[in-house]
């Protein structure tokens, strides 16, 4: 099996360049010297395939073969490092596998040597001035201090460390996902708060006495506790909802002599200007649009980064070696969790890889059937609700807007949250009865089922709100939809709390006291993450109608973090099944981007594009669509300033014309096609390179074997020659003088001759080794 190399061969093999990666200081320095050189030379161009760090063959990296790196080369490396930009230098330094002391030597800025002092015997030389910090150094200090400050604001460091130490990377990923969502909501809240809520709160819309027929009803004066749940009542005409926002330009005192306001609130230009004016409709429109656009960019960026870390170009089977080396979670510190992890790994290694296939049978119709049934139930409930409201309204007349009893409004959110809570549990329970080939398939099927349920529920609700509520003739339908979303969000939170209480706390008590088992409940990561995604979808849907909804979501997430953290630490045990954390994180970020954010933005875009805003309230009252605000503004700009006609024409061609969207979509698809072809090509290259590596390995083995046999032959042939020498000695003694020629006259070998005085056969044998191989 293994080749038996001689010790000399082994010693030489050990100092081969490919064996000394990460060990030989000289090799590391030369490698990084080349890298800095390459980086300096081709900073702008795209690196070629062989420079990618994923290439496994060190020979492709092209570093120098010499293993001793002289002092001058070390100084050359230092000077190369100095010539790079600061971020490149820092990145290169950090990535070097050298010890800290060596790295600090390389990072030291070589100060210019002071000039030798001119001999002046009369007076002593003044002391040299202290070195002044240069500008880039001061900027770097500032950057580092800002970074430190930002880092010290790290939220929940200690709590996350404790969770990671006890439960490992899987459960930690849930809390990290929660943290990510918190930052998204914080961003949304800041943007809407700064640009929408603050100006409107500072300039409240004037109260109109008496309330006219076409105006939205005023808010009741009293505050009952139910408002927190329903979002109506006291909150209904507040800055929380769309209806409160005025359609005028704030801070502009216009002469309103009772004439009906022009559509969109565009007063004439003869209004007196008091200080800064702030057009609320425009602000609303552009703020929501920009917030969504920036969120989209951030989401796509984080999704692509996560994808880049976990996606591999070639289809990799799950190797046993990978399981052996990559499955130990270094974060886990609790003894019981460590024991559990060892057990898991042992099981995994024993079981090995099994082919995955989806289970068959009658299970699919039952799941699809139950999902469809729930969706239909919600649909009919909302349908009957709207019908009764419409009938009640026509009965009592248009003037009074019937507010169904506040508690009755909670029925739909409660029902939906209940379905969301119970049905996945039922699915999981039914899932235990099925046979699966591997736990990962089981997990994926569970996630898909849960996702389908939530997607269908949300689409039914969106259809109901945007399709029917918007055209139902309600006075201020946007505020109503906003209130609905607020209620849904709140009910979702309450039911999650209930689930935590019942599912984890009570079950643990039950299983410990009643069943007398020490098995605690396991934290179901996938289900909890899908709950978070569902809540976030509601928040994104509601930003248009309720600008303060991100604030509510922030409070909810903060409370959820602490509650879930304490529940997990108290009630749950570490997961028994292996959890591929990075793949699941990628899946969840993708789910956040694709069904969740995409769906929300499609709904919002549809609302802005096609649905008529209500006439009685909100910043877009009187306009035919919300988009019209932008259009009117552009027209107004064009009228006011003839130089900006190009903006109007650009606007009309780019934004209004659907052809532009088609062209943009076509371009994106072409880019995607090209990228997929590139990936296919890279796969082929990888396969070829692996073939090459195998062949190189064979070549190397062959060469080493040949050299060794030749060396051994050389060692052996002198043994034969000793016999010949004895013969020749005998011949000499017999003949007195003999001359003989060597059996092999290889030019590599210098001549050998037998030492006539030596009877034991010791020779002076010198072999000239072929240059370069040894």
């Amino acid at each position, binding site marked *: 099996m293994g*080749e038996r190399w001689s010790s000399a061969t082994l010693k030489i093999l050990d100092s081969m360049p490919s*064996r000394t*990666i*990460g*060990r030989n200081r000289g090799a590391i320095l030369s490698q990084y010297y080349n890298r800095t050189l390459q980086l300096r030379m081709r900073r702008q161009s795209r690196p070629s395939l062989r420079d990618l*760090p994923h290439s*496994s*063959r*060190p020979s492709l990296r092209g570093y120098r073969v010499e293993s001793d790196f002289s002092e001058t080369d070390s100084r050359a490396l230092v000077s190369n490092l100095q010539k790079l930009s600061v971020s490149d*230098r*820092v990145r290169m330094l*950090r990535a*070097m*596998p050298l010890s*800290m*002391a060596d*790295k*600090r030597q390389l*990072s*030291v800025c070589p100060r210019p040597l002071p000039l030798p002092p001119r001999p002046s015997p009369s007076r002593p030389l003044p002391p040299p001035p202290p070195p002044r910090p240069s500008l880039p150094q001061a900027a770097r*200090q500032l950057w*580092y201090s800002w*970074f*430190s*400050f930002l*880092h*010290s604001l790290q939220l929940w460091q200690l709590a996350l460390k404790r969770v*990671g*130490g006890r439960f490992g*990377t899987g459960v930690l990923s849930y809390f990290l996902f929660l943290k990510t969502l918190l930052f998204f909501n914080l961003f949304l809240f800041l943007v809407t708060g700064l640009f929408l809520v603050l100006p409107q709160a500072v300039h409240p819309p004037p109260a109109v006495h008496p309330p006219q027929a076409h105006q939205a009803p005023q808010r009741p004066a009293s505050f009952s506790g139910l408002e927190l749940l329903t979002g109506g009542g006291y909150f209904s005409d507040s800055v929380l909802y769309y209806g409160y926002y005025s359609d005028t330009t704030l801070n502009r005192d216009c002469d309103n002599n009772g004439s009906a306001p022009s559509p969109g609130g565009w007063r004439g230009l003869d209004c007196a200007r008091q200080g800064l004016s702030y057009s609320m409709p425009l602000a609303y429109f552009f703020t929501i649009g920009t917030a969504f656009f920036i969120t989209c960019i951030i989401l796509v960026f984080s999704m692509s980064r996560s994808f880049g870390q*976990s996606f*591999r170009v070639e289809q*990799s089977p799950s*190797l*046993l*070696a*990978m399981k*052996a*080396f*990559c*499955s*130990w979670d*270094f*974060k886990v*510190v*609790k003894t019981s969790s*460590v024991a559990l992890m*060892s057990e898991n790994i*042992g099981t995994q*290694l*024993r079981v090995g890889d099994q082919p995955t296939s989806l289970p068959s049978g009658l299970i699919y119709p039952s799941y699809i059937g139950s999902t469809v049934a729930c969706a239909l139930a919600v649909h009919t409930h909302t349908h009957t609700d709207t019908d009764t409201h419409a009938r009640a309204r026509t009965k009592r007349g248009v003037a009074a807007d019937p507010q169904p009893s506040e508690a009755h409004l909670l029925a739909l959110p409660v029902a939906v949250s209940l379905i969301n809570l119970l049905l996945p549990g039922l699915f999981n329970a039914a899932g235990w009865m099925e046979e699966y080939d591997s736990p990962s398939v089981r997990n994926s099927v569970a996630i898909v089922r849960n996702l389908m349920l939530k997607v269908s529920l949300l689409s039914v609700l969106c259809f109901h709100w945007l399709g029917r509520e918007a055209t139902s003739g309600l006075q201020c339908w946007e505020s109503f939809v906003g209130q609905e979303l607020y209620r849904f969000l709140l009910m979702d939170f309450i039911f999650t709390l209930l689930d935590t209480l019942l599912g984890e706390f009570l079950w643990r008590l039950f299983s410990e006291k009643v069943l007398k088992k020490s098995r605690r409940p396991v934290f179901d990561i996938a289900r909890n993450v899908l709950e978070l995604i569902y809540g976030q979808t509601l928040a994104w849907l509601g930003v248009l109608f309720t600008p303060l909804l991100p604030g509510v979501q922030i409070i909810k997430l903060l409370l959820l973090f602490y509650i879930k953290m304490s529940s997990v630490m108290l009630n749950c045990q570490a997961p028994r099944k292996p959890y*591929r*954390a*990075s*793949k699941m994180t990628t899946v969840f970020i993708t789910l956040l981007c694709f069904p969740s954010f995409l769906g929300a933005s499609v709904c919002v875009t549809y609302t802005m594009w096609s649905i008529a805003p209500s006439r009685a309230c909100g910043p877009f009252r009187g306009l035919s669509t919300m988009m019209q605000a932008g259009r009117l503004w552009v027209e107004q700009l064009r009228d006011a300033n003839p130089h900006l006609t190009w903006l109007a024409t650009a606007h009309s061609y780019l934004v209004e014309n659907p052809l532009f969207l088609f062209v943009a979509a076509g371009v994106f698809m072409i880019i995607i096609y090209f990228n997929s072809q590139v990936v296919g090509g890279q796969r082929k290259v990888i396969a070829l390179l692996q073939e090459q*590596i*195998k062949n*190189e*390995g064979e070549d190397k*083995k062959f060469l080493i074997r040949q050299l060794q046999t030749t060396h051994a032959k050389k060692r052996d042939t002198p043994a034969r020659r000793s016999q010949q020498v004895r013969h020749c000695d005998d011949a000499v003694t017999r003949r007195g003088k003999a001359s003989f020629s060597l059996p092999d006259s290889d030019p590599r070998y210098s001549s050998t001759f037998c030492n006539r005085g030596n009877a034991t056969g010791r020779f002076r044998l010198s072999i000239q080794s072929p240059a370069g191989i040894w």
Partner: protein
Amino acid sequence: MGNKQTIFTDEQLDAYQDCTFFTRKEILRLHGRYHELAPHLVPMDYTKEPDCKLPLALIVAMPELNENPFRNRIVESFSEDGLGNQSFNDFVDMFSVLSEMAPRELKAIFAFKIYDFNVDNFLCKEDLEQTLNRLTKEELTEEEVQLVCEKAIEEADLDGDHKLSFADFENMITRAPDFLSTFHIRI
């Protein structure tokens, strides 16, 4: 930002920030951790670069490393003498490589060193056997261990020498997306 600390000079802290993945505060915190491992041995004033090394036994007693089956190898890989006696520089180095922001290449180099028990620059069968025994706390039987080792080497060995060189190891690591998240210790 303006805290007057006397443990390190500003240049030292800048050098640490350049060479590791830690910020100022974290480096000071690490010094605190290093100090509390042996308060009478570790000086509070590092401006003169004192030559102070802590033995292996003290470092593996840290809660972050205490339960790790590879704790001895981890500390040995980051020590200059190879026996586990770490100076503060080595200590910072160790946690920097094991931190979240270290790139895959760097982690792969040190992971290879950690798993190479006989320090011969190869992951041979004996290294793999030791790794498996420590991972599973010797739960697998002898035959199972042998089987797994042979299969693992067969799968990952690219140049056919029945051992895993660093190139083979790195190739395998790049195909494991979980490596970055599992080879991580939060300090």
